[in-house]
């Protein structure tokens, strides 16, 4: 297979673009598409500090690398990692975060559940007698938002085309309109002074392309998924979507692009069903009187 641009040996075929690329031209095409998307959606403004949510996985490390490479002249780029405290898992990814941030000279911050909440996720799940994914999601989102506001202006996450297409379909299947409408290149339609806008520069890039980009840039960050990963429904949607993409190249991109058209029209007349408050305990944004993180902490204190 030969590169569509130069005729050299290809490393990737992108059926939905009807293109094949060698390493050099793939990196060029990838970076051009991401830069164009950032510009088109106005995701990053000159002078803003961009906080990258960095799990130490190939997606977030690739995003960090990309932003450092293309935006460090006009913006400050910072890495933010949440250490939930999952024994035998997070230690390894934190090593990767430190290794690459030091190599690329990017300031990084690691925030742990243990220091912030007095308990690791392993301990929290044991005490609350719940599956770890529920408190993990609540506390991780809480800390990502809190520290993104402390460290910078926006939180950039490495959600890719696969993640986004899966989320669109999952919310359709589950009839969750409020969650559905919150998806997009800049997450959230709700405004609050303590909300850090979340941007997704890789939103139109497939997961496979991100992996190839990582490998070509010597980011060797493959690891097993989180041992707690409770993704049953997402996995079903993902498998079906991948089967469909194989038979109908461009399916994932079409799901997201059609969603974007719909969303734009819906937002013109949309009013969020739930009102948006400030948590009485911590001052963070919440649809309730007390935010989910503070409610869980209260339960922990009584456990």
């Amino acid at each position, binding site marked *: *297979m030969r590169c569509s641009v130069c005729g050299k040996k*290809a*490393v*990737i*075929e992108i059926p939905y673009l009807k293109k*094949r690329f060698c*390493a050099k031209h793939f990196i060029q095409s990838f970076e051009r598409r991401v830069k164009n998307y950032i510009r088109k959606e106005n995701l990053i403004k000159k002078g803003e500090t961009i906080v990258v949510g960095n*799990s130490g*996985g*190939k*997606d977030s490390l690739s995003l960090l690398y990309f932003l450092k490479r293309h935006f460090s002249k006009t913006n400050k780029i910072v890495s933010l990692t949440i250490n939930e405290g999952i024994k035998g898992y997070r230690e390894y990814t934190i090593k990767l975060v430190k290794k690459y941030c030091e190599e690329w000279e990017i300031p990084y911050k690691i925030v742990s559940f243990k220091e912030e909440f007095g308990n690791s996720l392993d301990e929290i799940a044991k005490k609350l007698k719940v599956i770890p994914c529920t408190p993990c999601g609540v506390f991780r989102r809480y800390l990502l938002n809190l520290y993104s506001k402390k460290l910078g202006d926006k939180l950039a996450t490495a959600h890719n085309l696969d993640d986004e297409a899966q989320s669109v379909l999952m919310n359709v299947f589950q009839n969750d309109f409020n969650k559905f409408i919150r998806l997009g290149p800049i997450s959230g339609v709700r405004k609050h002074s303590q909300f850090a806008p979340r941007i997704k520069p890789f939103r139109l890039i*497939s*997961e*496979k392309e*991100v*992996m*190839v980009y990582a*490998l*070509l840039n010597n980011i060797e960050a*493959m690891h*097993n*998924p*989180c041992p707690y*990963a409770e*993704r049953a429904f997402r996995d079903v949607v*993902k*498998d079906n979507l*991948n*089967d469909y*993409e*194989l038979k109908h190249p461009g399916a994932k991109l079409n799901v997201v692009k059609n969603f974007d058209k719909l969303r734009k029209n819906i937002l013109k007349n949309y009013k969020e069903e739930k009102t948006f408050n400030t948590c009485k305990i911590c001052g963070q944004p919440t649809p309730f009187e007390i935010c989910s993180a503070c409610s869980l902490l209260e339960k922990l204190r009584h456990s």
Partner: protein
Amino acid sequence: MEVEVEYLFEWKKKVKLKEKARVKDLLEKLEINPETVVVRREKNILTSDELLKDGDKVQIISVVSGG
């Protein structure tokens, strides 16, 4: 012919293939959707039409992230 396959860091095994088999034949035999993996030989990324040779050591990397 036979190639040695490493997949998901979890298992290594030898896979028998017809002569002049390509990467896509290997994935088909293992029932892996090419959308979900990147295949490498000696750190070089291979496209689906790449010919495999007897004794090749191939790494199949899952592109699926997991937090």
